[in-house]
């Protein structure tokens, strides 16, 4: 008998697991896949908290501002590789080199220094997929008009055979290489030669001074070896966020998993929960199909963190929408879409309606459906991360709260 079983191991589920395990609970987490963090840039946004806590039915409104803040503080205390302050807006560079707003960001991505820079050196790793030096340069010039932007191309022996074949090297490949022993050496070489070049420029009396290096495909957070190389440099290095898949997001996923495991949490990845056993208003057991045979797990309480439509927790067909684990009723908006793709899209608010304890409710009867189940992250109804920019924030707040109370 487990104290708690968490179904779904994305950002929300993992944070819930970490908090609960830290409280001494025996937690089992079962996850079909690895969640959406590897697609995301690793940045955690909170959105306009003051406004969203007043928005009818929004998860922030149910939880209240202090819980949203607790989630954020808790995350930050455990992951010092992240930078940010409650209610402060950070700036990072998009994969196209434009500045964007952000909440908490992996160390190394902070683009604030660019405001005082006079020279930006844009590192251009040869043949890096989905990185476009010319466009990035133009966007940097537009955003920081006081700067001269120079592109600094380089190529590595390690990828020579890839280049000859015309095979793409993506940001994840570069990051992986930089983290290896030989890669760290190569990184030193690359930044040293850059440093020499900048030195020469600095001795030039016409040199404007303050230089900043912009570096795609690096991901120094959670890597001591890379941090060490960068710390010796006489100029700041600003990493760019990545187009999916993103090393920064992936590293956060790894770090969350590691923390959960270190606290004694048990994680099963690769199997999905297909069936549950319910008596009255309580769930007792879940059944997992793995390698052709069924295994059962019992627990006192359960957390549903299956990631909504994108995570696989909700399936929509032309006839019906379905929550896949407990068969819980869903809020489904009447109007499904709007013409402006990046504007408000009603469909995105699909999810499970919950009470202030995050337990699923029947909103017509105003009754809790399952007393020992909590719903977190993207499974909750009535929010749209893509217009409210609060994807990470809702996952942290609801995850922390479930971990605290289960």
């Amino acid at each position, binding site marked *: 008998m487990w104290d708690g079983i968490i179904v779904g191991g994305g950002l929300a589920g993992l944070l819930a697991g970490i908090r609960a395990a830290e409280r001494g609970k025996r937690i089992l987490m079962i996850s079909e896949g690895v969640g959406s963090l590897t697609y995301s840039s690793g940045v955690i946004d909170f959105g306009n908290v003051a406004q969203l806590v007043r928005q009818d039915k929004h998860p922030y409104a149910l939880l209240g501002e202090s819980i949203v803040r607790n989630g954020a503080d808790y995350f930050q205390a455990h992951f010092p590789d992240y930078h940010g302050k409650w209610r402060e807006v950070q700036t990072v560079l*998009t994969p196209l080199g434009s500045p964007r707003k952000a909440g908490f960001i992996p160390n190394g991505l902070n683009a604030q220094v660019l405001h005082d820079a006079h020279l930006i050196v844009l590192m251009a790793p040869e*043949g890096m997929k989905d990185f476009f030096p010319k466009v990035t340069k133009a966007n940097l010039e537009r955003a920081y008009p006081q700067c001269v932007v120079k592109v600094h191309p380089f190529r590595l022996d390690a990828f020579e055979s890839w280049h000859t074949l015309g095979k793409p090297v993506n940001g994840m490949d570069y990051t992986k290489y930089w983290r290896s022993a030989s890669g760290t050496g190569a990184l030193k070489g690359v930044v040293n030669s850059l440093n020499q070049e900048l030195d020469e420029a600095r001795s030039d009396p016409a040199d404007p001074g303050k230089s900043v290096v912009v570096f795609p495909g690096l991901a120094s957070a959670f890597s001591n070896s890379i941090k060490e190389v960068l710390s010796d440099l006489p100029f700041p290095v600003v990493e760019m966020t990545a187009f999916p898949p993103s090393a920064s997001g992936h590293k956060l996923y790894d770090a969350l998993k590691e923390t959960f495991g270190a606290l004694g949490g048990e994680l099963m990845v690769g199997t999905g929960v297909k069936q549950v056993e319910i008596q009255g208003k309580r769930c007792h057991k879940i059944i997992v199909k793995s390698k052709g045979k069924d295994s059962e797990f019992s627990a006192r309480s359960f957390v549903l963190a299956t990631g*909504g439509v*994108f995570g696989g927790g909700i399936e929509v067909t032309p006839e019906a929408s379905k929550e896949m684990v407990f068969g819980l009723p869903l809020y489904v908006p009447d109007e499904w879409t709007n013409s402006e793709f990046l*504007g408000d899209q009603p469909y995105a608010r699909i999810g499970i309606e919950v009470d202030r304890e995050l337990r699923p409710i029947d909103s017509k009867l105003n009754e809790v459906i399952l007393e020992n189940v909590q719903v977190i992250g993207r499974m909750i109804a009535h929010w749209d991360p893509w217009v409210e*920019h609060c994807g990470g924030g809702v996952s942290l707040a609801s995850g922390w709260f479930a971990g605290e109370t289960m």
Partner: protein
Amino acid sequence: MTDYQVVIVGGGATGVGILRDLSMRGISALLLEQGDLAHGTSSRFHGLLHSGARYAVKDPVSAAECIDENVILKQIAAHCISDTGGWFVQSSEDAQSYVEQWIRGCAYAHIPIREISLADAYLKEPLMSKDVLRVFEVPDATVDGFKLVWANAKSAKRYGGDYKTYHQVERLILDNKRIVGVAAKNLVNGEEIMVHCEVVVNAGGAWASQIVGTIGVPLDVICDKGTLLAFNQRLFQRVINRLHPPSDGDIFVPHETITILGTTSEIVDSPQENQPREPEVKRLLAMGEKLLPNLMGHRVIRAFAGVRPLHREDSEVPGSVEEGREVSRTFVLIDHEVHDGVEGLISIVGGKFTTYRLMAEKVSDWVAEKLGNTAPCSTAKENLMSEIPQDLRKQALRLLPCVAAEKMLERLGDDAEEVLTKIMDDPRKGQMLCECEMVSVAEVEKVASDEDSHHLADIRRKTRLGMGTCQGAFCTYRVLPLLGLENKKFDPLQDELKRFINQRWKGIRPVLWGQQLRETELTRAIYASILQLNENPG
């Protein structure tokens, strides 16, 4: 003084067919198109090269026209056509009496048909409903509308024909009841131009009445909207028609790796009303189920709609105005001198994609006679595309994966050489920018730099970029830098990107469920969150 003997308004299949025909007869002609070529119905249709069998009972004239043209086009436009063959399938709900009539109709129109045993049929099309009584094979085929339109334009150009895209004809110019030219606006830079000519051909499709309306000439064109669904797989290997009186959702047409199911029929007020709607989608799915059970379980990647121009005078059957499908699908030529006393103006209305060449021939005969030109029509005899040189094909196969190479050669013909040179200079440009449709970086670069590419949508039509299963989430991002390099030609990038995404969204909205919905979440995450193209109040 005239600039051209003839101005053609409209760059759909009909317009470019006329341009080619006139140019081959040595008549100087200019075609003006308000969008990109095939921006109207000619890229928003089913892509079926009719055998005529669908019209065998109700419309024998159309049926006979179709089978003749079917044979001709398979010859002269082989690179745009996939000769899949087609079946007519009688389900248990379909009347035997209709089948008998249909067999007689096909014989009358000289459409070859052959009955196939059910055992053989299920072997060849395992997904087909088990509720089938009889199956007949006909010479249906599939056609890539966009390719065919461009092939005509390029062929016309070789004979001296001219065309200008993004030129909207605003007014016809009259001198004492005689047409002397047109006034048009360049929609890219706003410039107004005037073109003098002796004859104007109105090939504006569903827009035809608006064009002659500029000089107060009435032309009654009914706009009949048809919605189509694209599935992400090749569900059938050949065209599958239901053997019953033509109705909604009764034809499946396979194209490369997808299948298109259609269509519906609804009278609308203007050709702009081409937004597919959810009820139409559901109706199509319900009807399609009759031929392919569990159709809902297959993934729809988009819905789209086109507007058929039907000539009202054909529709004297009572009630037929409400029911677009009842109107004859054959075409009419309207000499406005005879009808309205305006000399030098002819409108061509109705017809089908399949009969575009025949329509062009009839129009060109009329024009030639008017201008005293006696050269006969030769469009049925000469291939649209010159043969691709062997060494070019070999080179393509060396530099690109086999399927990608063939697709590119079909899309570009001789122009492929430029793309291959780019790849030789820099092998990375051989990488697939659009992994779904196999379009290389070099090809997109070439097409983006074409003089007549002004929008991302033009590049999409020319390359099929963004038409695959990822909905353009990835390739749209990847095409940006290439547009960025084409200085000043494309709008500020972010606007262009938003417009493009919204256009694609139009076709996705009515089919937003299942895998499609997941892709939508990812696409919105990428563009709103990672690239932050929308407002972030945070």
